[in-house]
Protein backbone atom coordinates (compact mmCIF):
# COMPACT_ATOMS: atom_id res chain seq x y z
CA UNK A 1 0.00 0.00 0.00
CA UNK A 2 1.25 3.48 -0.85
CA UNK A 3 2.60 5.56 2.01
CA UNK A 4 2.22 8.79 0.03
CA UNK A 5 -0.54 10.93 1.49
CA UNK A 6 -3.56 11.12 -0.83
CA UNK A 7 -3.92 14.40 -2.70
CA UNK A 8 -7.17 15.76 -4.12
CA UNK A 9 -7.92 14.90 -7.74
CA UNK A 10 -8.90 18.43 -8.75
CA UNK A 11 -11.76 18.73 -11.25
CA UNK A 12 -13.64 21.53 -13.01
CA UNK A 13 -15.99 22.08 -10.06
CA UNK A 14 -13.17 22.36 -7.53
CA UNK A 15 -10.41 24.18 -9.49
CA UNK A 16 -11.26 27.71 -8.23
CA UNK A 17 -11.49 26.43 -4.63
CA UNK A 18 -8.07 24.78 -4.66
CA UNK A 19 -6.53 27.71 -6.59
CA UNK A 20 -7.80 30.13 -3.92
CA UNK A 21 -6.46 27.91 -1.13
CA UNK A 22 -3.07 27.94 -2.85
CA UNK A 23 -3.21 31.73 -2.63
CA UNK A 24 -4.26 31.66 1.05
CA UNK A 25 -8.01 32.33 0.61
CA UNK A 26 -11.04 30.24 1.48
CA UNK A 27 -13.37 30.64 -1.51
CA UNK A 28 -16.60 28.64 -1.66
CA UNK A 29 -19.62 28.88 -3.98
CA UNK A 30 -22.35 31.46 -3.32
CA UNK A 31 -25.71 31.17 -5.09
CA UNK A 32 -26.83 34.31 -6.95
CA UNK A 33 -30.48 33.26 -6.62
CA UNK A 34 -31.06 31.91 -3.08
CA UNK A 35 -28.10 33.75 -1.56
CA UNK A 36 -26.78 30.68 0.27
CA UNK A 37 -23.23 29.37 0.32
CA UNK A 38 -22.53 25.69 -0.17
CA UNK A 39 -19.65 23.29 0.19
CA UNK A 40 -18.22 21.18 -1.51
CA UNK A 41 -18.30 23.16 -4.79
CA UNK A 42 -20.89 22.00 -7.29
CA UNK A 43 -22.19 23.26 -10.66
CA UNK A 44 -25.79 23.37 -9.39
CA UNK A 45 -26.84 24.84 -6.03
CA UNK A 46 -27.88 21.98 -3.68
CA UNK A 47 -30.33 24.33 -1.90
CA UNK A 48 -32.38 25.81 -4.79
CA UNK A 49 -30.88 24.04 -7.84
CA UNK A 50 -29.90 27.28 -9.57
CA UNK A 51 -26.76 27.29 -11.71
CA UNK A 52 -26.19 31.01 -11.05
CA UNK A 53 -23.13 30.42 -8.85
CA UNK A 54 -19.94 32.34 -8.12
CA UNK A 55 -17.04 31.75 -5.78
CA UNK A 56 -17.02 34.02 -2.74
CA UNK A 57 -14.20 34.61 -0.26
CA UNK A 58 -15.54 33.71 3.19
CA UNK A 59 -14.34 34.60 6.68
CA UNK A 60 -12.50 31.39 7.42
CA UNK A 61 -14.08 31.45 10.88
CA UNK A 62 -16.39 28.82 12.29
CA UNK A 63 -16.83 26.27 15.03
CA UNK A 64 -16.27 22.58 15.57
CA UNK A 65 -19.57 20.85 14.75
CA UNK A 66 -18.18 17.42 15.59
CA UNK A 67 -14.82 15.65 15.47
CA UNK A 68 -12.93 12.46 16.08
CA UNK A 69 -9.44 11.88 17.41
CA UNK A 70 -7.93 9.23 15.14
CA UNK A 71 -5.95 6.86 17.36
CA UNK A 72 -5.45 4.49 14.43
CA UNK A 73 -4.36 6.06 11.14
CA UNK A 74 -6.46 6.03 7.96
CA UNK A 75 -3.85 3.82 6.31
CA UNK A 76 -0.03 3.83 6.52
CA UNK A 77 0.27 7.31 4.97
CA UNK A 78 -1.12 8.85 8.15
CA UNK A 79 0.74 6.64 10.65
CA UNK A 80 3.15 9.39 11.71
CA UNK A 81 0.27 11.82 12.42
CA UNK A 82 -1.47 9.72 15.11
CA UNK A 83 -3.19 10.95 17.20
CA UNK A 84 -4.75 13.57 14.96
CA UNK A 85 -8.05 15.44 14.95
CA UNK A 86 -10.39 15.26 11.96
CA UNK A 87 -13.33 17.62 12.37
CA UNK A 88 -16.43 18.92 10.67
CA UNK A 89 -16.19 22.69 10.77
CA UNK A 90 -19.40 24.70 10.54
CA UNK A 91 -18.39 27.94 8.84
CA UNK A 92 -19.94 31.24 9.95
CA UNK A 93 -21.51 31.37 6.48
CA UNK A 94 -23.37 28.08 7.10
CA UNK A 95 -21.80 25.18 5.20
CA UNK A 96 -19.87 22.39 6.91
CA UNK A 97 -16.52 21.17 5.68
CA UNK A 98 -14.16 18.45 6.78
CA UNK A 99 -10.68 19.42 7.84
CA UNK A 100 -7.95 18.87 10.39
CA UNK A 101 -7.60 20.79 13.65
CA UNK A 102 -3.96 21.76 14.02
CA UNK A 103 -3.18 21.36 17.70
CA UNK A 104 -0.50 19.91 19.93
CA UNK A 105 -3.21 18.87 22.38
CA UNK A 106 -6.10 16.93 20.79
CA UNK A 107 -7.86 16.70 24.15
CA UNK A 108 -8.49 20.47 24.00
CA UNK A 109 -10.78 20.11 20.99
CA UNK A 110 -14.49 20.11 21.82
CA UNK A 111 -17.78 20.60 20.02
CA UNK A 112 -18.56 24.31 19.77
CA UNK A 113 -14.90 25.37 19.95
CA UNK A 114 -14.21 28.47 17.81
CA UNK A 115 -11.75 27.93 14.99
CA UNK A 116 -10.19 29.78 12.09
CA UNK A 117 -8.61 28.62 8.87
CA UNK A 118 -4.87 28.20 8.42
CA UNK A 119 -3.27 27.10 5.18
CA UNK A 120 -0.88 24.16 4.97
CA UNK A 121 1.06 23.65 1.75
CA UNK A 122 1.32 20.04 0.53
CA UNK A 123 3.15 20.77 -2.75
CA UNK A 124 3.24 23.45 -5.46
CA UNK A 125 -0.30 22.61 -6.65
CA UNK A 126 -2.12 21.79 -3.42
CA UNK A 127 -2.55 23.78 -0.20
CA UNK A 128 -4.99 22.43 2.41
CA UNK A 129 -7.26 24.60 4.52
CA UNK A 130 -6.69 23.32 8.07
CA UNK A 131 -8.20 24.97 11.16
CA UNK A 132 -6.78 26.04 14.51
CA UNK A 133 -8.49 26.80 17.81
CA UNK A 134 -8.91 30.52 18.54
Amino acid at each position, binding site marked *: *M*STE*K*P*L*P*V*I*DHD*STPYWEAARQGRLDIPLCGDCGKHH*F*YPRSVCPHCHSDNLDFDTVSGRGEV*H*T*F*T*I*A*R*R*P*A*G*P*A*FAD*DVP*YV*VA*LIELEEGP*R*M*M*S*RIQTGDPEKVH*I*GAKVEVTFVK*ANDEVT*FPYFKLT
Partner: protein
Amino acid sequence: MKNGREPVVVGVADAPLEDGKFVTKASVLGHAALVAKAAVEEAGLKLSDVDGLLTAGMWGVPGPGQLATVTLGEYLGIMPIFVDGTNIGGSAFEAHVAHAAMALREGYCEVALIVYSSDQKSLRSRNLGGRPSVLSMQHETPFGMPTPVGGYAMAAQRHMHEFGTTSENLAEIAVATRKWAQLNPEATRRDPLSIDDVLSSTMISEPLHLLDCCLVTDGAGAIVMTTAERAKDLNTRPVAVKGYGEAHTHWAISEMPDLARLLPAQKAGERAMKMAGVSHTDIDVVEIYDSFTITVLLSLEALGFCKIGEGGDFVSGQRTAPGGAFPMNTSGGGLSALHPGMFGMFLLIEAVRQLRDEVGERQVKGAETALVHGTGGTLSSGATVILQKD
Protein backbone atom coordinates in the same frame (compact mmCIF):
# COMPACT_ATOMS: atom_id res chain seq x y z
CA MET B 1 -57.48 -7.03 -1.52
CA LYS B 2 -55.49 -10.22 -2.00
CA ASN B 3 -54.85 -11.45 -5.54
CA GLY B 4 -52.28 -14.17 -4.88
CA ARG B 5 -49.35 -12.02 -5.96
CA GLU B 6 -48.43 -10.93 -2.42
CA PRO B 7 -44.64 -11.31 -2.05
CA VAL B 8 -43.28 -14.02 0.27
CA VAL B 9 -39.84 -15.31 1.20
CA VAL B 10 -39.66 -19.05 0.53
CA GLY B 11 -35.99 -19.88 0.96
CA VAL B 12 -32.85 -18.62 2.71
CA ALA B 13 -29.31 -19.96 2.98
CA ASP B 14 -25.91 -18.86 4.21
CA ALA B 15 -22.39 -20.27 3.97
CA PRO B 16 -20.66 -21.91 6.94
CA LEU B 17 -17.69 -20.01 8.38
CA GLU B 18 -14.86 -21.04 10.65
CA ASP B 19 -12.97 -18.29 12.46
CA GLY B 20 -14.72 -15.82 10.13
CA LYS B 21 -13.50 -17.53 6.96
CA PHE B 22 -15.29 -19.69 4.40
CA VAL B 23 -15.01 -23.41 5.14
CA THR B 24 -15.75 -24.55 1.58
CA LYS B 25 -13.11 -24.01 -1.10
CA ALA B 26 -14.67 -21.83 -3.80
CA SER B 27 -14.23 -18.42 -5.42
CA VAL B 28 -16.36 -15.48 -4.30
CA LEU B 29 -18.77 -16.25 -7.16
CA GLY B 30 -18.63 -19.95 -6.27
CA HIS B 31 -19.88 -19.16 -2.77
CA ALA B 32 -22.62 -16.97 -4.26
CA ALA B 33 -23.72 -19.87 -6.46
CA LEU B 34 -23.61 -22.41 -3.62
CA VAL B 35 -25.85 -20.35 -1.32
CA ALA B 36 -28.15 -19.49 -4.23
CA LYS B 37 -28.57 -23.21 -4.98
CA ALA B 38 -29.15 -24.02 -1.31
CA ALA B 39 -31.78 -21.28 -0.92
CA VAL B 40 -33.79 -22.29 -4.02
CA GLU B 41 -33.60 -25.96 -3.04
CA GLU B 42 -34.80 -25.16 0.48
CA ALA B 43 -37.81 -23.55 -1.21
CA GLY B 44 -38.41 -26.67 -3.33
CA LEU B 45 -37.38 -24.79 -6.46
CA LYS B 46 -34.47 -25.06 -8.93
CA LEU B 47 -32.02 -22.40 -10.07
CA SER B 48 -33.59 -22.70 -13.53
CA ASP B 49 -36.88 -21.43 -12.02
CA VAL B 50 -35.24 -18.10 -11.13
CA ASP B 51 -36.27 -15.25 -13.43
CA GLY B 52 -35.38 -12.31 -11.17
CA LEU B 53 -31.78 -11.73 -10.00
CA LEU B 54 -30.68 -9.11 -7.48
CA THR B 55 -27.19 -8.65 -6.09
CA ALA B 56 -24.67 -6.08 -4.88
CA GLY B 57 -21.04 -6.45 -4.00
CA MET B 58 -17.59 -5.01 -4.30
CA TRP B 59 -15.99 -8.04 -5.94
CA GLY B 60 -14.08 -7.51 -9.14
CA VAL B 61 -14.26 -3.70 -8.94
CA PRO B 62 -12.83 -2.23 -11.10
CA GLY B 63 -13.66 -5.10 -13.44
CA PRO B 64 -16.46 -7.56 -14.09
CA GLY B 65 -18.26 -6.94 -10.80
CA GLN B 66 -19.17 -3.42 -11.89
CA LEU B 67 -21.92 -5.22 -13.78
CA ALA B 68 -22.70 -7.40 -10.79
CA THR B 69 -25.98 -9.02 -11.87
CA VAL B 70 -24.59 -9.72 -15.34
CA THR B 71 -21.48 -11.42 -13.97
CA LEU B 72 -23.45 -13.48 -11.47
CA GLY B 73 -26.23 -14.38 -13.91
CA GLU B 74 -23.62 -15.74 -16.32
CA TYR B 75 -21.92 -17.75 -13.56
CA LEU B 76 -25.27 -19.25 -12.53
CA GLY B 77 -26.16 -20.06 -16.15
CA ILE B 78 -29.51 -18.25 -16.02
CA MET B 79 -31.14 -15.49 -18.08
CA PRO B 80 -33.09 -13.28 -15.67
CA ILE B 81 -35.83 -11.03 -17.06
CA PHE B 82 -35.87 -8.79 -13.97
CA VAL B 83 -32.57 -7.58 -12.51
CA ASP B 84 -31.55 -5.13 -9.83
CA GLY B 85 -27.95 -4.27 -8.96
CA THR B 86 -28.86 -1.47 -6.57
CA ASN B 87 -25.87 -0.81 -4.36
CA ILE B 88 -26.51 1.58 -1.48
CA GLY B 89 -24.07 -0.20 0.85
CA GLY B 90 -24.99 -2.70 3.53
CA SER B 91 -28.71 -1.92 3.33
CA ALA B 92 -28.84 -2.89 -0.36
CA PHE B 93 -30.50 -6.25 0.35
CA GLU B 94 -33.40 -4.72 2.29
CA ALA B 95 -33.91 -2.48 -0.76
CA HIS B 96 -33.65 -5.56 -3.00
CA VAL B 97 -36.47 -7.22 -1.04
CA ALA B 98 -38.58 -4.10 -1.68
CA HIS B 99 -37.77 -4.05 -5.37
CA ALA B 100 -38.36 -7.78 -5.78
CA ALA B 101 -41.69 -7.42 -3.94
CA MET B 102 -42.80 -4.75 -6.42
CA ALA B 103 -41.68 -6.84 -9.40
CA LEU B 104 -43.58 -9.87 -8.06
CA ARG B 105 -46.76 -7.85 -7.41
CA GLU B 106 -46.53 -6.43 -10.92
CA GLY B 107 -46.04 -9.85 -12.52
CA TYR B 108 -42.65 -8.74 -13.81
CA CYS B 109 -41.05 -11.92 -12.45
CA GLU B 110 -42.13 -15.12 -10.64
CA VAL B 111 -39.09 -16.23 -8.64
CA ALA B 112 -36.62 -13.60 -7.39
CA LEU B 113 -33.19 -14.54 -6.05
CA ILE B 114 -31.19 -12.07 -3.92
CA VAL B 115 -27.53 -13.00 -3.37
CA TYR B 116 -24.45 -11.66 -1.60
CA SER B 117 -20.96 -13.07 -1.25
CA SER B 118 -17.67 -11.67 0.04
CA ASP B 119 -14.31 -13.30 0.77
CA GLN B 120 -12.78 -10.11 2.21
CA LYS B 121 -11.38 -11.91 5.26
CA SER B 122 -9.73 -14.74 3.34
CA LEU B 123 -8.31 -12.29 0.79
CA ARG B 124 -7.31 -9.75 3.46
CA SER B 125 -8.73 -7.30 0.92
CA ARG B 126 -10.48 -4.93 3.33
CA ASN B 127 -9.24 -1.52 2.24
CA LEU B 128 -8.45 0.64 5.25
CA GLY B 129 -6.48 3.16 3.20
CA GLY B 130 -9.52 5.31 2.54
CA ARG B 131 -11.64 6.13 -0.44
CA PRO B 132 -10.06 7.42 -3.68
CA SER B 133 -9.63 11.16 -3.42
CA VAL B 134 -11.92 12.06 -6.33
CA LEU B 135 -15.15 14.08 -6.64
CA SER B 136 -16.69 14.68 -3.20
CA MET B 137 -14.03 12.51 -1.54
CA GLN B 138 -11.26 14.97 -2.58
CA HIS B 139 -12.58 17.05 0.34
CA GLU B 140 -12.44 14.24 2.93
CA THR B 141 -9.81 11.58 2.16
CA PRO B 142 -6.74 13.90 2.19
CA PHE B 143 -7.45 14.88 5.80
CA GLY B 144 -6.87 11.29 6.96
CA MET B 145 -10.51 10.58 7.68
CA PRO B 146 -10.61 7.00 9.00
CA THR B 147 -13.21 5.19 6.87
CA PRO B 148 -15.73 4.09 7.61
CA VAL B 149 -15.29 4.36 11.39
CA GLY B 150 -14.52 8.12 11.45
CA GLY B 151 -17.96 9.16 10.25
CA TYR B 152 -19.65 6.94 12.85
CA ALA B 153 -17.33 8.35 15.51
CA MET B 154 -18.32 11.89 14.53
CA ALA B 155 -22.01 10.95 14.79
CA ALA B 156 -21.41 9.33 18.21
CA GLN B 157 -19.54 12.41 19.41
CA ARG B 158 -22.41 14.64 18.32
CA HIS B 159 -25.02 12.36 19.93
CA MET B 160 -23.09 12.41 23.20
CA HIS B 161 -22.86 16.21 23.03
CA GLU B 162 -26.55 16.77 22.32
CA PHE B 163 -28.11 14.11 24.52
CA GLY B 164 -25.54 13.03 27.10
CA THR B 165 -25.22 9.53 25.65
CA THR B 166 -22.23 7.68 27.13
CA SER B 167 -19.68 5.10 26.02
CA GLU B 168 -21.30 2.77 28.59
CA ASN B 169 -24.62 3.12 26.73
CA LEU B 170 -22.94 2.07 23.49
CA ALA B 171 -21.14 -0.80 25.22
CA GLU B 172 -24.51 -2.17 26.43
CA ILE B 173 -25.32 -2.90 22.78
CA ALA B 174 -22.05 -4.76 22.12
CA VAL B 175 -22.49 -6.84 25.29
CA ALA B 176 -26.16 -7.72 24.67
CA THR B 177 -25.34 -8.70 21.09
CA ARG B 178 -22.52 -10.96 22.28
CA LYS B 179 -24.97 -12.77 24.56
CA TRP B 180 -27.09 -13.64 21.53
CA ALA B 181 -23.95 -14.82 19.71
CA GLN B 182 -23.26 -17.18 22.60
CA LEU B 183 -26.59 -18.87 21.76
CA ASN B 184 -25.67 -19.16 18.07
CA PRO B 185 -23.25 -22.00 17.28
CA GLU B 186 -22.47 -20.38 13.91
CA ALA B 187 -21.36 -17.03 15.38
CA THR B 188 -17.70 -16.05 15.04
CA ARG B 189 -17.17 -14.48 18.49
CA ARG B 190 -18.77 -16.35 21.40
CA ASP B 191 -16.43 -15.65 24.32
CA PRO B 192 -17.94 -13.72 27.25
CA LEU B 193 -17.89 -9.93 27.02
CA SER B 194 -18.45 -7.28 29.70
CA ILE B 195 -19.07 -3.55 29.50
CA ASP B 196 -15.61 -3.01 31.01
CA ASP B 197 -14.08 -5.15 28.26
CA VAL B 198 -15.63 -2.86 25.63
CA LEU B 199 -14.56 0.33 27.41
CA SER B 200 -11.00 -0.91 27.91
CA SER B 201 -10.57 -2.14 24.32
CA THR B 202 -8.29 -0.13 22.03
CA MET B 203 -9.57 3.32 21.14
CA ILE B 204 -9.82 3.42 17.34
CA SER B 205 -11.48 6.72 16.45
CA GLU B 206 -12.76 8.60 19.50
CA PRO B 207 -15.23 7.92 21.01
CA LEU B 208 -15.46 4.47 19.37
CA HIS B 209 -13.43 1.55 20.75
CA LEU B 210 -12.41 -1.59 18.93
CA LEU B 211 -15.34 -3.49 20.45
CA ASP B 212 -17.81 -0.82 19.26
CA CYS B 213 -16.86 -1.94 15.73
CA CYS B 214 -18.20 -4.89 13.75
CA LEU B 215 -16.16 -7.92 12.78
CA VAL B 216 -14.42 -8.33 9.44
CA THR B 217 -15.33 -11.77 8.07
CA ASP B 218 -16.20 -13.63 4.88
CA GLY B 219 -19.84 -14.44 4.25
CA ALA B 220 -22.39 -15.44 1.63
CA GLY B 221 -26.16 -15.48 1.79
CA ALA B 222 -29.21 -15.82 -0.44
CA ILE B 223 -32.94 -15.19 -0.24
CA VAL B 224 -35.62 -16.52 -2.58
CA MET B 225 -38.93 -14.74 -3.02
CA THR B 226 -42.05 -15.63 -4.95
CA THR B 227 -45.79 -14.95 -4.82
CA ALA B 228 -48.20 -16.29 -2.18
CA GLU B 229 -50.01 -18.21 -4.95
CA ARG B 230 -46.83 -19.95 -6.18
CA ALA B 231 -45.74 -20.66 -2.61
CA LYS B 232 -48.86 -22.80 -2.01
CA ASP B 233 -47.35 -25.54 -4.16
CA LEU B 234 -43.95 -25.43 -2.43
CA ASN B 235 -42.82 -27.54 0.50
CA THR B 236 -41.79 -24.55 2.62
CA ARG B 237 -43.02 -22.19 5.30
CA PRO B 238 -43.49 -18.84 3.55
CA VAL B 239 -42.77 -15.58 5.35
CA ALA B 240 -44.77 -12.62 4.06
CA VAL B 241 -43.13 -9.33 3.05
CA LYS B 242 -45.65 -6.88 4.48
CA GLY B 243 -43.94 -3.52 4.16
CA TYR B 244 -40.79 -1.81 2.96
CA GLY B 245 -39.12 1.57 2.57
CA GLU B 246 -35.75 3.04 1.58
CA ALA B 247 -33.97 6.41 1.52
CA HIS B 248 -30.50 7.93 1.40
CA THR B 249 -29.07 11.35 2.18
CA HIS B 250 -25.30 11.72 1.67
CA TRP B 251 -21.97 10.11 0.81
CA ALA B 252 -19.53 12.69 2.20
CA ILE B 253 -20.03 12.83 5.98
CA SER B 254 -19.93 16.66 5.84
CA GLU B 255 -23.18 16.44 3.87
CA MET B 256 -25.07 14.37 6.48
CA PRO B 257 -28.07 16.59 7.24
CA ASP B 258 -27.99 15.90 10.99
CA LEU B 259 -25.14 13.97 12.62
CA ALA B 260 -27.28 12.94 15.61
CA ARG B 261 -30.45 11.90 13.75
CA LEU B 262 -30.66 9.14 11.16
CA LEU B 263 -33.10 10.56 8.62
CA PRO B 264 -33.02 7.65 6.11
CA ALA B 265 -34.09 5.24 8.88
CA GLN B 266 -36.90 7.54 9.90
CA LYS B 267 -38.17 7.85 6.33
CA ALA B 268 -37.81 4.17 5.44
CA GLY B 269 -39.18 2.92 8.77
CA GLU B 270 -42.30 5.10 8.73
CA ARG B 271 -43.12 4.04 5.20
CA ALA B 272 -42.56 0.33 5.85
CA MET B 273 -44.64 0.25 9.03
CA LYS B 274 -47.48 2.20 7.46
CA MET B 275 -47.54 -0.14 4.47
CA ALA B 276 -47.58 -3.19 6.75
CA GLY B 277 -50.22 -1.65 9.00
CA VAL B 278 -48.21 -2.42 12.13
CA SER B 279 -47.19 -0.35 15.14
CA HIS B 280 -44.10 -0.69 17.31
CA THR B 281 -45.88 -2.88 19.85
CA ASP B 282 -46.77 -5.42 17.12
CA ILE B 283 -43.11 -6.18 16.47
CA ASP B 284 -41.72 -9.27 18.22
CA VAL B 285 -38.14 -9.33 16.98
CA VAL B 286 -35.91 -6.61 15.59
CA GLU B 287 -32.80 -7.02 13.42
CA ILE B 288 -30.87 -3.75 13.08
CA TYR B 289 -27.66 -3.13 11.19
CA ASP B 290 -24.78 -2.99 13.66
CA SER B 291 -21.70 -1.89 11.76
CA PHE B 292 -20.93 0.04 14.94
CA THR B 293 -22.77 0.31 18.25
CA ILE B 294 -23.78 3.90 17.44
CA THR B 295 -25.48 2.68 14.22
CA VAL B 296 -27.93 0.70 16.35
CA LEU B 297 -28.63 3.54 18.77
CA LEU B 298 -29.34 6.03 15.96
CA SER B 299 -31.53 3.47 14.16
CA LEU B 300 -33.64 2.62 17.23
CA GLU B 301 -34.39 6.31 17.76
CA ALA B 302 -35.09 7.09 14.10
CA LEU B 303 -37.33 4.04 13.73
CA GLY B 304 -39.39 5.34 16.64
CA PHE B 305 -38.76 2.59 19.21
CA CYS B 306 -37.81 5.41 21.57
CA LYS B 307 -37.64 9.19 21.39
CA ILE B 308 -34.71 10.95 19.71
CA GLY B 309 -31.97 11.26 22.30
CA GLU B 310 -33.31 8.49 24.55
CA GLY B 311 -31.53 5.58 22.86
CA GLY B 312 -28.96 5.37 25.65
CA ASP B 313 -31.64 4.75 28.26
CA PHE B 314 -33.50 2.41 25.92
CA VAL B 315 -30.59 -0.05 25.61
CA SER B 316 -29.47 0.22 29.25
CA GLY B 317 -29.75 -2.72 31.65
CA GLN B 318 -29.28 -5.24 28.81
CA ARG B 319 -32.82 -4.71 27.51
CA THR B 320 -31.85 -6.03 24.07
CA ALA B 321 -30.12 -9.20 25.37
CA PRO B 322 -31.65 -12.72 25.50
CA GLY B 323 -34.46 -12.61 28.08
CA GLY B 324 -34.65 -8.80 27.83
CA ALA B 325 -37.77 -6.81 26.98
CA PHE B 326 -36.58 -6.02 23.44
CA PRO B 327 -35.05 -8.98 21.54
CA MET B 328 -32.66 -7.48 18.99
CA ASN B 329 -29.90 -8.79 16.71
CA THR B 330 -30.60 -12.34 17.73
CA SER B 331 -27.88 -13.98 15.60
CA GLY B 332 -25.15 -12.05 17.35
CA GLY B 333 -25.21 -9.41 14.61
CA GLY B 334 -22.34 -7.81 12.77
CA LEU B 335 -20.66 -7.16 16.10
CA SER B 336 -20.29 -10.84 17.05
CA ALA B 337 -21.69 -13.26 14.42
CA LEU B 338 -20.27 -12.15 11.05
CA HIS B 339 -19.78 -9.00 8.98
CA PRO B 340 -18.67 -9.60 5.41
CA GLY B 341 -18.68 -5.93 4.35
CA MET B 342 -22.38 -5.66 3.54
CA PHE B 343 -24.30 -7.22 6.41
CA GLY B 344 -27.94 -6.49 5.50
CA MET B 345 -28.42 -9.89 3.86
CA PHE B 346 -27.80 -11.67 7.16
CA LEU B 347 -30.29 -9.52 9.10
CA LEU B 348 -32.98 -10.75 6.70
CA ILE B 349 -31.93 -14.40 6.90
CA GLU B 350 -32.02 -14.32 10.73
CA ALA B 351 -35.45 -12.66 10.76
CA VAL B 352 -36.87 -15.28 8.39
CA ARG B 353 -35.47 -18.12 10.53
CA GLN B 354 -36.89 -16.53 13.69
CA LEU B 355 -40.34 -16.32 12.07
CA ARG B 356 -40.04 -19.98 10.97
CA ASP B 357 -39.27 -20.94 14.58
CA GLU B 358 -36.06 -22.80 13.75
CA VAL B 359 -33.19 -21.15 15.61
CA GLY B 360 -33.10 -23.32 18.73
CA GLU B 361 -31.71 -21.72 21.88
CA ARG B 362 -31.96 -18.18 20.57
CA GLN B 363 -35.56 -18.51 19.35
CA VAL B 364 -37.78 -15.60 20.38
CA LYS B 365 -40.88 -17.47 21.57
CA GLY B 366 -43.99 -16.83 19.50
CA ALA B 367 -42.28 -14.40 17.11
CA GLU B 368 -44.80 -13.48 14.40
CA THR B 369 -43.65 -10.07 13.15
CA ALA B 370 -40.09 -8.88 12.54
CA LEU B 371 -38.63 -5.52 11.62
CA VAL B 372 -35.36 -5.55 9.68
CA HIS B 373 -33.44 -2.32 9.13
CA GLY B 374 -30.25 -1.97 7.13
CA THR B 375 -27.83 0.96 7.03
CA GLY B 376 -25.27 1.54 4.27
CA GLY B 377 -22.37 3.80 3.38
CA THR B 378 -21.49 6.09 6.29
CA LEU B 379 -24.99 6.37 7.80
CA SER B 380 -25.86 7.23 4.18
CA SER B 381 -28.71 4.91 3.31
CA GLY B 382 -31.44 3.07 5.15
CA ALA B 383 -33.93 0.41 4.12
CA THR B 384 -36.57 -1.29 6.25
CA VAL B 385 -38.51 -4.52 5.70
CA ILE B 386 -41.44 -5.81 7.78
CA LEU B 387 -41.76 -9.61 7.69
CA GLN B 388 -44.62 -11.66 9.08
CA LYS B 389 -45.32 -15.33 9.65
CA ASP B 390 -47.80 -16.22 6.91
